[in-house]
């Protein structure tokens, strides 16, 4: 009987300990970038630099 009581007590303690686990488990989405954000990778930044880069290519890489 003490053995059964001990098992029951152990089960109660285990459940109590498990219930104290962090509920907000982070599940990472595979194949999605996990690093720091890059301010120059955005659509706005790319649009801002597109024309100057185009002009520079036409100036510097065409034959004179």
């Amino acid at each position, binding site marked *: 009987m003490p053995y059964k009581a001990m098992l029951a007590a152990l089960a109660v303690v285990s459940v109590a300990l498990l219930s104290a686990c962090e509920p907000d488990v982070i599940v*990472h989405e*595979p*194949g*999605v*970038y*996990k*690093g*720091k*954000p*890059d*301010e*120059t*990778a*955005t*659509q706005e*930044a*790319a*649009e801002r*630099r*597109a024309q*100057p*880069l*185009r002009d*520079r*290519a*036409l100036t*510097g*890489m*065409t*034959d004179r």
Partner: protein
Amino acid sequence: MARMKFLCDAERCIECQACVTACKSEHEVPWGVNRRRVIVMDDGLPGEKSVSVACMHCSDAPCAAVCPVDCFYTTADGIVLHDKDLCIGCGYCFYACPFGAPQYPQQSAFGVRGKMDKCTFCAGGPEPTHSEAEYVKYGANRVADGKLPLCAEMCATKALLAGDGDVVSDIYRQRVMRRGGRPQTWGWQAAYGTT
């Protein structure tokens, strides 16, 4: 939206290695790491060709597909970059890359690999623009200043083209037309003759 691309005109490349030197100098790339290198085909034989190769900033980058820690990202204009703070130096990207672009500095004895290093299209990385951390980890950010990669800008024969894919293909198309209207890419004449 522009998509940034490299193109090396094998008819013009003279294997001067200026692109390699410019890259190493601009970004202070560590010893043993070559973000760009010149490959020579049929060295010393008639018809020898050379091409300058680095990360080609693939549209569907295989390096990003195999990365176990997902440290790769592509900018809105198609530049493939990575976060060195996440990289674990596993080498999967090196096996996946068809151009051999990913490089690893040897940081300690017994060939232990450091974090992966590759061409950034002179666009830095995920650190504040022009910060010291960005320069140390990724090199200079020329694109943010409206400049193109130094390897292409330094090319004496203008063999190496870089920039918006539309502009690059226009420039190359005009060259091909001047040469006689045939795309003189490597192996074309051998495979299809002169007609």
